[in-house]
């Protein structure tokens, strides 16, 4: 569910441009607004490194602040232009590796359902013209303000993944409830698009169960047979489990997130 906050940026853009507060000059580009949707295109059946074939049936994640990046130095006027409509977040501490210059963003708290029956619109991203190649996003914990029903498994957590893992004749249904430290960033997910003032496209935010670059799976390292300790065909992965830590740390890698341009 997209929250109201994500609508304020495009409205601010429209208001400021309309009021002439930040009138574009002849050599200053105009920001481009592109819709962003939750896209299940990357959720594919996959076989992990231990031979378990995993089919995902549900995949929901609590995130915030999508950032879109270009490589190399950016003309100062372009960055100033973005700053006119939205305040970029400064990350000064070593450890936050730069995934490029942030020249596009969709700010706000989101709960994304990547396998909803109908593709969910998350909002409109504001992007300065440029050759985009990266996506950053921040993980958080879902709360009551997200409009989730009482008893929703995602409340208080970062992600819920449901599915079935099969190896040989054994099938295990699993539910993974993941906690990611709030503020943890995924930096540098793939996003390839040249944006200019004539660009019309929809940006599909997706998670990849199979790393498009190296073929690793999101579920590598998980032995679902061992997770089903009582042999009833059902396994839970929850905070405190070793399996939770393995899956959580894989989920935050840029290998498993990206933008599919529609």
């Amino acid at each position, binding site marked *: 569910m997209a929250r109201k906050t994500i609508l304020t940026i495009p409205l601010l853009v429209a208001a400021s441009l309309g009021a002439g507060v930040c009138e574009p000059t002849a050599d200053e580009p105009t920001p481009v607004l592109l819709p962003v949707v939750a896209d299940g295109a990357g959720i594919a059946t996959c076989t992990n490194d231990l031979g378990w074939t995993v089919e995902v049936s549900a995949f929901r994640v609590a995130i915030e602040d999508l950032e879109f990046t270009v490589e190399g130095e950016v003309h100062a006027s372009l960055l100033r232009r973005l700053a006119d409509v939205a305040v970029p977040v400064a990350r000064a501490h070593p*450890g936050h*590796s730069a995934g490029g210059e942030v020249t596009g963003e969709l700010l706000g708290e989101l709960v994304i359902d990547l396998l909803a029956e109908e593709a969910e619109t998350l909002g409109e991203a504001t992007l300065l013209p440029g050759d985009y190649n990266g996506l950053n996003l921040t993980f958080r914990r879902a709360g009551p303000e997200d409009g989730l029903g009482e008893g929703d498994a995602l409340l208080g957590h970062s992600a819920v993944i449901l599915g079935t893992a099969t190896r040989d004749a054994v099938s295990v249904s699993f539910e993974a409830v993941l906690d990611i*430290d709030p*503020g*943890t960033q995924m930096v540098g997910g793939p996003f390839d698009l040249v944006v200019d003032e004539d660009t019309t496209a929809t940006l599909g935010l997706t998670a990849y169960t199979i790393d498009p670059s190296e073929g690793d799976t999101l579920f590598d390292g998980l032995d679902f047979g061992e997770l089903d300790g009582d042999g009833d065909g059902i396994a839970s992965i929850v*905070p405190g489990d070793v399996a939770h*830590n393995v899956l959580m740390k894989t989920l935050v*890698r840029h290998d498993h997130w990206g933008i599919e341009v529609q």
Partner: protein
Amino acid sequence: MHANKTALALSLTVLALSVTTVACDGSAVGEGTLGVEIWGEDYIESGIPAGELADGWAITFDRFLINVGAISVAEEGADPAVTEPGFRVFDLTATTGPEQIVAVTAPAGTYDHTVYTVAPASSASGAGNAADADVQLVADGGFAVYVEGAATDGAETVTFAWGFSRTTVYDPCHSIAVLGDGGSASVQLTIHGDHLFYDDAVSEEPELRFADIALADADADGEVTRAELEAYDITVLPDYGVGSLDIDNLWGFIEHMTTTLGHIDGEGHCGS
């Protein structure tokens, strides 16, 4: 009353002129002494107390050797007023406060662009305040950073002696040295030794921990070695997040953290 106001106004005028003498083009006039110093602060000099670690361990350093050089200090957009291309080895446990590296006569101004490098020592590395034998140790090992010390949780004590060979260029560092005419100012290369014990490489607010390092002592001989840390899997731990970094063991994690040791003027950050 009037005489007092006049005297006050005159005093303020004199004060302003002495502090801020500006040329017609707006640039500062005059010159002073601009220095560069290095310091590991209390955490390296005196140790990291148990209250600072999330798991109750306390850490002390017996040696903290660092090979630093390729230093430049400039006003933004101007040529450097300080240029020190050579490398020197400092032992930050042997200091009692900031250790001067160099001091030069420089034009008055605001020096806000500093660059420095931490790199593997070689036969060309000189001695800062480090003993000759320690300079030889890091040169022979090709170490940029070499640490020796011990940690205890009150019941157990383990020692460590680790050499790291990563090169890190800290550029730009947003220094804050304001040099007036006839005055002096310094830029401080501040080394945060506690970063070696962070429990997350990408978090905004990591904790300090040592318990997993101690658990890595597989042969229980009381010393945690590089090999033991390389064999310690961090992918199964709730902590030691690495984001998208390709790191899966505790040695790789600590080695990565050596690239975050350098700061400027205390808590100031640098690009790298």
